[in-house]
């Protein structure tokens, strides 16, 4: 029983520390500095904003 609780709490602690570390790392890296850019990161020159990228097969854009 002691072993099971040790595993549970150790794992939860490890996961918690990982999340906090990830958050600190993300802040340090400037991940939250410019959210507008983050929202646009799924677009690029080939698939720019305004381009529809999905249609039923055989139907023109």
């Amino acid at each position, binding site marked *: 029983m002691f072993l099971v609780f040790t*595993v549970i709490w150790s794992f939860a602690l490890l996961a918690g520390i990982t999340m906090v570390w990830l958050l600190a790392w993300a802040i340090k890296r400037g991940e939250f500095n410019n959210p507008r850019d983050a*929202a646009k990161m799924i677009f690029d020159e080939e698939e720019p904003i305004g381009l529809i990228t999905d249609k039923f*097969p055989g*139907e023109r854009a």
Partner: protein
Amino acid sequence: MHAQTTTAVLPSPRPEIESRIEIDRSSRSVIIYYWTTSLFWLTMATLAGLISSIKLHSPEFLGGIEWLTFGRIRPVHWDTAIYGFGGLAASGTLLWLQARLCQVRLPYPTLLRVGCVIFNFGVLIGAIGILMGHSTGVEALEFPIWAMPFLVIPYVFIVIANFTMYAKKKTNHTYVSQWYLMAVTVWFPILVLTAEACTNFGAVDGVSQAIANWWYGHNVVGLFATPTGIAAAYYLIPKVIGKPIHSYHLSLLGFWSNAIFYNWAGTHHLTGGPLPAWTITLGIVGSMMMFIPVITIGINHHMTMLGSFHHLKTSPTLRFAVMGSMVYTLASFQGSLEALRSHQEITHFTHYTIGHVHFGMYGFFAPLMFAMMYYAMPRLMNQEWSSARLIRIHFWCTLVGMLVYTLAMCFAGVRQGMMMNDPSIPFLNIVRFTIPFLAMRTLGGLILLTGTIAFLINFIRIITPHRVTYDSPTLFTSDRDWDDVLEREKELAGTRLVDGGQTA
């Protein structure tokens, strides 16, 4: 005298296209493994659900077969749906999406393929174990203990691959979908290991086991299926309509509030049970607080779509993604209200809860996984879906089947609850009242199964070699398109292209 020569330089693929082609190639075989097997389990789960449903209004159906009794086939339905379909579809989504968003090749493809085989083996022996009568009896963890390592170990491979991609990412930002995908790989192992330890390994006993059970039962939906579905929606809706999400700030607020509040909500399932009242109150408060992420996500998806709803006519991905997102908002509102004691006085222990669960799984999670497959598969396989008609059948069957099922169960549940609260009504009369609605539930399941089979046919055809003429932008970024670009440029140049750019 030399004839006039024309020089044509073979154009290099533009970096974005080249990068996407490379990423898709690296993930192709792995994703096909995950998604193909996930659809196999979806079909099996729906069949098992259908058998369970028929037994509720026609108990003699397959009644003589011991391993198909309701107590066995029903947990097979749930566990194969959540692990077989949900686990594999979500893992495939996670891997493909993370590779694309990090702009890196998918690492450890062999390990991930082996992991997929092990995971499938785990689901298979788990399902067989339940059918043989070895269910643990713990909701959502019915697979025998000896099947669970086959599910947990492959997930470790996915966690490693996910973190490796994130560590190597070539982008400056973390897209909101990535927050959800990273969080899932942290939350899910904690959920499974803690719940298994507390229930099937007996770390706690008595009502504490029930708390751990429902903490898991609720969170496996909210901290595993839901984040993956939301991650898919946040990518697909803006990507398909070519419009950034309405508010990135709101999306982050939605993520962190979901992360903070969802974990507390599970105990509302035990309202009326022999638990300390504060434990249940905590679950209800957590459920109420869930209005914050649900509203932010709902506003964001709706405002992003505003002015673009006409694309629903022409985009299969968008149809499923928007359906999933809208049902997410509705099902979450329903779920939060359902947590209230006053609400549960009527709906607890009724078919209403079953309606709500299926509303979420078949109306929100499954359509978003379908949307992801509709978007990614043509790019991965470098060929178009073979039949628009099958896609339409799949969509309408999913929508209508889910609505028939949910409305029948929710209406029956409310009436059933009101009748059960009236001591003058004999219990058998209440059972008889629900029978037509249980038959409607079977009808809903049949419609859903029809849609699933239509999708399966289309899916099998896209993973087998065939070439379908296409002129839609689905393959916009594929290497086949690039071949066509080269071909067109060759025709325009009117010259023979030679590597190195020289022509005589």
